[in-house]
């Protein structure tokens, strides 16, 4: 089964590589994906009888928060909002933008204006029309003080309404990833303007009215959210009558609920659960690497990582591929780059310079750097080679455990290491202030554009560059890639960038965390991928 899985993964990757070659302007109907591939089921489906079951029950870890799109900050609400609201553009399986509420779009030669041609005749769930005025209003709200995403929206200088269904965004500077950064994150969900203007704000924020395939119906706080089919949806479908979310915080409980039929979809399970699911013919398993990279970041401004030899040595000292394989696969899969393997920016395995596992080489390097073994640990000028590993607690899959094993392997080569597990709030504070030597961090994006990772994590002063990485040569390449619109050139630039990143040895790469879906094998018409998990419009059950 594992074979089948990895095969699936490879297939997805190949598909992604092929698909990204296609020009983005070529509209592919998101609502009508060409014959969805059957996950984990090779039989033909002609003979299958459609089940009478038309409700799709999904387990949530946390309750929904609120539905003002310019304030949605949590994955749970985002997932629910995805059914209710739509964006100008949506994503293809490889993460590339495809038409949604905009049927087509154009970028000016100078890269400064983006013109969107809106779908006509679309109405919100409250009956009000969707048009350029609504789009302008929404993105202006995104720039306003009410918004939690002002920084992202600040790239929009202003908007020109050309006609009812044509709108142009004028940017303050060219930005190749404008669609990824502004149009497609949570802030891009477009709500009904009429509802906003007529309703009390609190009611509005808890009564989302969009244009999507499902309409918000009921919320029982702490327990359940129910959506019903939107019969007037512009696309084809949905086939389901209801989408129901149930709040079940404990992963173990979610697993039981799936096995006992209490829910139809869970998106989190342990490695051990997955092994069991694979033996169960009633349950389909899909595990796909997502745009979620995990790595230890080495703070180059702190002892001992100010010395590149020590950064290299710690890499030689840890057998990360084996650790990940033993305790975290298939949920986390080892990767040798900061960029997610599932995205188009990753040049493929074996292309980038990487460091293997060789404790002896690690000790040689440490000694080269002037350390001497005193007792069990290395010392230099009376200063012990000691490292504190900052770890979050169950934020990323097996984070604490991976830190513990790493610590153990460090100790074995004479590096005195300890783990500091912190609760998320305090962790973020310390890490963002650069108060660490080495930290387990992840970076999640819903899009595949490499700039979402590189510009934040390794560009000088990037917003997620807590370990103070800085390389002028790299910055230059990244800036060039930002402005470049030719895909092939961008790809080449990001390959160069990744080579530089790896040569600087700023990280110990851990891998990519997958997205996982576990659901009854009677489900048809649904083919989740890292960018398109939420398309339930064609989903139905067989007997």
């Amino acid at each position, binding site marked *: 089964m594992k074979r089948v899985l990895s095969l699936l993964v490879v297939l997805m990757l190949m598909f992604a590589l092929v698909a990204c070659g296609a020009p983005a302007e070529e509209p592919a109907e998101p609502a009508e994906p060409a014959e969805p591939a059957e996950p984990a089921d090779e039989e033909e489906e002609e003979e299958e009888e459609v089940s009478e079951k038309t409700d799709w029950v999904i387990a949530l870890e946390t309750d929904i928060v609120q539905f003002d799109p310019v304030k949605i900050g949590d994955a749970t609400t985002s997932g629910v909002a995805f059914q209710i609201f739509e964006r100008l553009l949506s994503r293809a399986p490889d993460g590339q933008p495809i038409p949604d509420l905009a049927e087509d779009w154009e970028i000016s030669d100078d890269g400064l204006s983006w013109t969107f041609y809106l779908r006509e005749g679309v109405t919100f769930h409250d009956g009000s029309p969707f048009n350029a005025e609504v789009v302008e209003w929404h993105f202006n709200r995104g720039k306003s003080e009410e918004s939690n995403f002002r920084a992202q929206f600040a790239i929009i200088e202003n908007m020109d309404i050309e006609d009812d269904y044509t709108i142009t965004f004028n940017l303050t500077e060219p930005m190749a990833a404008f669609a990824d950064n502004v149009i497609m994150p949570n802030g891009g969900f477009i709500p009904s303007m009429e509802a906003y203007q007529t309703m009390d704000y609190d009611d509005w924020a808890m009564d989302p009215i969009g244009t999507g395939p499902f309409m918000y119906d009921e919320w029982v706080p702490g327990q359940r959210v129910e959506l019903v089919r939107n019969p007037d949806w512009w696309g084809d479908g949905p086939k389901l009558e209801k989408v129901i979310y149930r709040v079940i915080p404990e992963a173990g409980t979610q697993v039981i609920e799936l096995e006992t039929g209490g829910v139809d979809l869970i998106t989190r399970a342990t490695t051990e659960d997955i092994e069991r699911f694979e033996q169960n013919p009633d349950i389909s398993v899909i595990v796909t690497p997502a745009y979620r990279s995990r790595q230890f970041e080495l703070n180059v401004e702190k002892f001992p990582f100010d010395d590149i030899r020590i950064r290299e040595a710690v890499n030689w000292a840890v057998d990360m591929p084996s*650790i990940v394989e033993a305790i975290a696969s298939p949920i986390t899969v080892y990767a040798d780059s900061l960029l997610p393997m599932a995205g188009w920016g990753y040049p493929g395995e074996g292309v980038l310079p990487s460091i293997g596992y060789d404790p002896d080489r690690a000790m040689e390097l440490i000694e080269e750097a002037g350390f001497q073994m005193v007792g069990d640990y290395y010392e230099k000028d009376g200063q012990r080679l000691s490292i504190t590993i900052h770890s979050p607690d169950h934020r990323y899959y097996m984070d604490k455990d991976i830190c513990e094993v790493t610590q*153990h392997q460090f100790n074995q080569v004479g590096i005195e290491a300890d*783990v500091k597990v912190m609760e998320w709030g305090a962790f973020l504070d310390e890490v963002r202030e650069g108060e660490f030597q080495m930290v387990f961090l992840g970076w999640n994006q819903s899009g595949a554009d490499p700039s979402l990772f590189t510009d934040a994590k390794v560009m000088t002063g990037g917003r997620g560059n807590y370990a103070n990485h800085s390389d002028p040569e790299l910055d230059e390449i990244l800036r060039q890639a930002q402005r470049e619109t030719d895909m092939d050139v961008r790809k080449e630039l990001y390959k160069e960038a990744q080579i530089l990143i790896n040569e600087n040895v700023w990280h110990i790469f851990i891998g990519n965390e997958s997205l996982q879906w576990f659901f009854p094998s009677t489900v048809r018409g649904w083919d989740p991928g890292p960018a398109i998990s939420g398309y339930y419009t064609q989903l139905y059950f067989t007997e």
Partner: protein
Amino acid sequence: MHVLTRLSRHRSARIGGVCILIIVLMAIFAPVLAPEGYNDQNLIIRLRGPSAETPLGTDQLGRHMTSRIIWGARISLQIAFMATGIGLFVGGTLGLVAGYYGGGSDRLIMALMDVLLAFPGILLALAVVAILGPGLYNVMIAVGISGIPQFARLVRGSTLSIREKEFIEAQHAAGASDARILALHILPNIVGPIVVFATLRVGTSIMQAAGVSFLGLGAQPPLPDWGGMISQSRQLLRTAWWTGIFPGVAILLTVFGFNLMGDGLRDALDPRVRIAKKGTEAPRESAVTAD
């Protein structure tokens, strides 16, 4: 001697004593008793069930649960004794001052204690660890702080009842200093209930510390902290129940031991028991919580 003899004849004290002895021996002789170190990882044998080679199974990093539980006795007892000590020392001092001097200091101290008491214990401990940061010592402090008001109330109450006694008046008349009276005459007379409560509190501290660990703010890995082990096992419970059940049994036995011992001590220290029937707790149980 009297008390100790009575204690040694007390059945629940004996059982409790045995439990405590086992745990204390485990803590002291962990390096000898434990077949492996608490952080001897072996990813090849991860999550093995109980068997001849791995009596209590292994955890997610292939460490032997047996060894981790034995080493864990150290952590738990350390936390429990230190936390109780902090509560006893700070709370006891405050209670003594409040009870002996009375007046404004009494009112102020007890008002503060009321505030602390109105705060749910586990949330207070959690908040304190959240402020101090996780770690063994901070858990001790947090659990210790949440025990302060109870100790203060108990000591104040006992002190009040002794203060008015004639022999104390006599000491005052004879010109004895406050310090002398407190140390030589009040303390010895109130030590009984304090010892009983402190014994019970050791058990409570272990549970509270485990609760803080359970919520993710306990001792740091790889330290084998029982509460942390249970917390960690939550996601493994279905496939590897032994990772959560055995540390819980260890907590249960330890706390049970201290509770039994507390009961025994109460009976041994309280002459009233001899008049009433053996094994009576009487409404003193509520002296701790009731106003």
